Every structure is written in C-alpha cells, then in structure tokens.
C-alpha cells in the first residue's frame, strides 16, 4: 500500500458544496477533506444522505444542476478540478477518473447493446476505430470475468443478471485505464454471493492495474474488508479518517463507535440492539456546533456551541470531535472483537 508521504492522487480540501432547494441554497458538504493515494483503496462510509454521493459527484464534475462549490479544492494529480473548464473536465471523465454506480439495473441504457455502450469510451478518449474499440471491449469483458464476451457485446442490458451488469459497468469504467476509480455503492443492489464476486474483482484490479479506488458504501463490513483507509462521514462532514484496521478496532469518534455497535450479531440475539438515538439533523437544523452533539451520549455543553475542527490524534488518524483526545479511553469500552 502507498505510503502517506508522497503526494496523493486525489485530495479534497475543506470542500463546501451547496445545493438549491425551495428555501434557497443549502449546504450539503460542509468541509470535506480526504485523500486517495496512488494505488490505494479508500473507503467512505456514513448513513444515507450524509453526502457521500455528492462528494463523488463533485470529483467527477457531475454535480446536480444548480449546485455550487462554495469553498475548498479538489486536487487531482496536481490539477485543481474546481477551476477546470467544463470541456477539460469532460475529457478527464472516463479517461482519468471513472465511476461505477450503485444500481447496475438502471445505470446502463436499456436501449443500446452492451457493446455499443462499452465502445463509446475508448472511441471517444482513445480515438480507437470501431474495430479496435470492439476488440478492446471484448478484452475488458474478459478481464472482469465475463465469459462469452462476443455474445455479450450484442446483448441488451435487461438480458443480463445484476452481477453481470455490474461487471459490465466496471468494464466500462476501466475501459480507458483510468487512474482513479470511484465506486459509489457498487454492490448495494447485489446479493452477498454476487457482492463477494464483485469485491474480489475490484481488489484484483487494484492489485494488478494499480488503479486507485474510492469506495463508497454504507456497509461497514464491505468497507472493512476492502479498504486500507476509511473516512466516516456524518452530516456533510468527515467525522473520522483512519487506517481501516485501526478504525474498526478503536474508533475515536462517538458516531463511528455507535455505528459499529449497532451491527446485529448472533451473540446479541436475546438483547436489544444498540441504536444511536435520534436522527441526523437536516441541514436547516444544523447549528453552529457539532452536528452529532444532539445524539451523542458523551456530549458536553461545548459540543453544541463549537464546531470541532479535524485533529490528528495518531498516525494518519484524524477525528472531528472535541472529546477526541480525552475520549480515547471511553471509546475503548466499546472496543470490538
């Protein structure tokens, strides 16, 4: 795995993004910082609506219409993506940075053949002829472990199973050998056995091609098995970033700890599951303080007054919590395994 010293491939720095709503612009990302090193697999976890997908979309330059980058920077291999022209950004997409989406059922255009859709990227970015693109695509399909590639090229997406479609999506994303692959919940719609196949494939590609992966999921299990580093997001902020093993062993943020505790397990069969009380505050209810303060069983008065800054509490372990340093002991109480 890459060491943290060299410049990362992708670095988000205090990214602020606002989206239009009926009540006007509303902040959805409020200072997201994270990085992906070359050849690294970095995970983002967090519950629904915390801004994972928006983060990914920001990197791709595909924010919803009307979105505004209110601050911060996205640095990709030395280029500042937020300042790139739309045309330059377009040329980057698919070529340098590619993306796999959550739902393989709907992410493919139902009315074009798999081949047609696969060939678009290489023809556009690598200026391949139809024939070259065709052969190239067949190669990609084989690489993602799909047999009968030739036949598959002529199939329409609805004829494929979810797992096959997701592999087609991955083949499509990898077609131009991007340096960074963003996978936004790539297995959420799939079954465990198929999920295992897909994750295996991603890991394999990372190993053999050296592609960096930014893996987004709300499944802690998936993240823990795949990633070397993990960022936990909560309400538009990164609450905690740490190497995976450390994060799952000794979470420093109360939210991370709460998430880990609420996973059902057989040994808790006869007791109630832990559930983080309350709910995520919607943006309009977020006050100046820590957004988790209201749900946090350790919150002190200061928590609802000051928005905590991110601090480094150990090697490559950053936490956004006022109690972080002194909190380390209490987190141990919930240590797992």
């Amino acid at each position, binding site marked *: 795995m890459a060491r943290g010293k060299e410049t990362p491939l992708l670095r988000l720095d205090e990214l602020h993004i606002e989206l239009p709503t009926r009540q006007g612009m509303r902040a959805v990302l409020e200072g997201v910082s994270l990085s992906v090193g070359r050849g690294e697999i970095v995970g983002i976890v967090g519950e629904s609506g915390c801004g994972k997908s928006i983060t990914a979309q920001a990197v791709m330059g595909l924010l919803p219409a009307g979105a505004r980058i209110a601050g911060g920077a996205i640095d990709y291999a030395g280029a500042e993506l937020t300042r790139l022209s739309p045309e330059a950004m377009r040329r980057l997409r698919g070529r340098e940075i590619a993306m796999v989406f959550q739902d393989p059922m709907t992410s493919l255009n139902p009315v074009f053949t798999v081949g047609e859709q696969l060939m678009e990227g290489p023809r556009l970015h690598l200026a391949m002829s139809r024939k070259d693109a065709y052969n190239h695509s067949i190669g990609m399909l084989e690489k993602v472990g799909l047999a009968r590639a030739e036949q598959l090229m002529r199939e329409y997406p609805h004829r494929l199973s979810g797992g096959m479609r997701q592999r087609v999506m991955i083949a499509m994303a990898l077609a131009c050998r991007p340096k960074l692959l963003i996978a936004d919940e790539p297995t959420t719609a799939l079954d465990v056995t198929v999920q295992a196949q897909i994750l295996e494939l991603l890991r394999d590609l990372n190993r053999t091609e050296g592609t960096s992966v930014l893996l987004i999921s709300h499944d802690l299990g998936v993240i823990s098995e795949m990633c070397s580093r993990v960022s936990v997001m909560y309400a538009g902020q990164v609450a905690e970033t740490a190497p995976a093993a450390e994060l799952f062993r000794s979470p420093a943020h109360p939210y991370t700890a709460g*998430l880990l505790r609420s996973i059902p397990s057989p040994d808790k069969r006869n007791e109630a599951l832990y559930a983080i009380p309350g709910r995520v505050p919607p943006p309009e209810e977020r006050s100046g303080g820590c957004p988790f303060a209201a749900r946090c069983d350790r919150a002190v008065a200061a928590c609802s007054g000051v928005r905590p800054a991110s601090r480094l509490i150990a090697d490559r372990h950053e936490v956004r919590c006022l109690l972080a340093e002194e909190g380390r002991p209490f987190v141990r109480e919930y240590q797992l395994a």
Partner: protein
Amino acid sequence: MSISSLEPLVAIDRLTKRYPAAAGFGKPKAWVNAVNGVSFNIRSGETLGLVGESGCGKSTTGQLLARLMEPTSGSIRFRGRELTTLRGREIREMRKHIQLIFQDPYASLNPRHTIGSILEEPLRVHRSGSLAERRQQARDMLETVGLDRSYASRYPHELSGGQRQRIGIARALMLRPSFVVADEPVSALDVSVQSQILNLLKELQRHFALTTLFVSHDLNVVQYMSDRVAVMYLGTLVELAPAEALFRGAVHPYTRALLSAIPSVRDGERRERIVLRGEVPSPLHPPAGCPFHTRCPQAAAECALVLPDWKPVGLDHYARCLLI
C-alpha cells in the same frame, strides 16, 4: 425467544407460483417459476427466517402466505384451515389474522393519504369501533411504534425511511393479527435506523405474541431475528434449520457460500470465503436437477439430473443436497 409450541400455526405444502411472461408473437407464453413446490411449517409464536438471493422467490412466498396472490398450486393451512380455497368475503375476514409488512417503505404507503387515514383504514374496512375510537387506536399505535401522535396528520413523503417503515409496521398491527409476514422490513434502511426497527419488531413480537415469517437477504439480520431459518434458491428451499445450527454448521453448499460471503467488520468472524463462479440462472429457464448445480463448487454429474429430497442432518435441521 423460545419456541413456545411445536403446533404449526401455518403449514404450506408444495406451494407453487408461476408468473406468465409473454414471449414474442405467435409463441406460447413462457413461465417464470417464482416459487417451486415449497413446503414448510411455522410454529405458533416462532419467527421463521427466509433468506436467499434476490429474485429467488422470497417475496412471492410471503405474498402467497398473506393471500395477496393466487398460488398456481399447493396448499396453505392457517390454524388448520385451508386458505387457498377461500373467496371474497372469507379472505377479507381472514386478513384480520394475517398481515404483511412490505419491503419498500416508500411504495407501500399511498402517497395521497395521511398517516392517520392509512392507519385507520384497516379498522374502517373491518368496521371496528367508532370514528373516534379508530382515531384513538391509530394514535396509540403511533406511540407504540415510537412515533409522535402528531404524525397522524402528515403525508408519507414527509417522513424519513425509518419512520415510514414504522408506519408500515403499525398498519400491519392495527388489526392485531396473530401472524405477520415481514418482507425485508429493514433492507431499505440505514444501519443505524435498521437497528431501531429490528428492536421495535422484536419488542412488538413479544407484546402482541406474534408469529412471524421474516424475509431477508441479510444473514446478519436473519440470524439476529429468527428462531429457525429457511434458505431458498431459485424458487426452491434448500436448507431449513434452527438459526444457531445453521450458522454453526450449514450443510448445503449454497448456504455455506452465502454464509462465507457475509462481509464483516470483525476480523475474527471472517470465514474462508467461498467465491462462487458463474451467474444466477434465469427463473425463466431454471436448470434441471438441483437448481444450484450450475454454480456449486462441489457439483457432481448427477446433480444436474435429479432434484434431491429433503434429508435430516441434525435436530430439526434438513437440507436438500445429493452430496450429504
């Protein structure tokens, strides 16, 4: 929760459901074999987990049990009474006792009705109580599922997923049923919300003495919720066992692969991963013989020929595989 009685509350026998799938012009219809001769019992007071891959027929089984669709063949007995032959009024009468909680908390609530009216409707339909009583009961039920009474006047789209699922559960319980089919009640929800709902369900099961068919594809959840677990593959049951026995020692290769594939945050729990090859066959053209043989890492030649019979492999533990 312990199994309170061995008396089956629900008994289904060789239940089959085929959906027509129109083929091209001039060709006869093709059939999707969604549920293929499934038989099992649910004992009074127990929770039976039903797991399996997407599209293997779990929801179909659940909806057949709740009599939301007509089975192609087979029988369903509830407290000894055959349900498949009921008609019209009788079915509606029966619905008081059997209720379904839907997988999708978004789609199962009519977007144009208020929460209050959604909850009161079952009572209204069965003409139970006065208007005021119904309102009262609906509001009480809101509290029972952990929501404020004021939610009665809201519309579904104003609620979060977790809240909507609570409404779905509340609606199912309005008629005080004795048997509930919970069709993936948490798979659309977030981790932290999921645990709230699971807790609620457990609590309500106890409170209302419910017998439950708990459908899910998340093994962690099934394991947590169920007394016994049935594993389904391509419309067929392949293994049936008490939850603990299944997670300790699954016998069927599919169950084993399934269990091994669960990603876990706990290093210690990770098993030797059995990564399957190939794709799930289409239910339009299910393979002959054992439905799993096309992906089974251990498949033998004869697996492609015969569908194996049930074999007892432990106390209350059965599997359907030639290789055991």
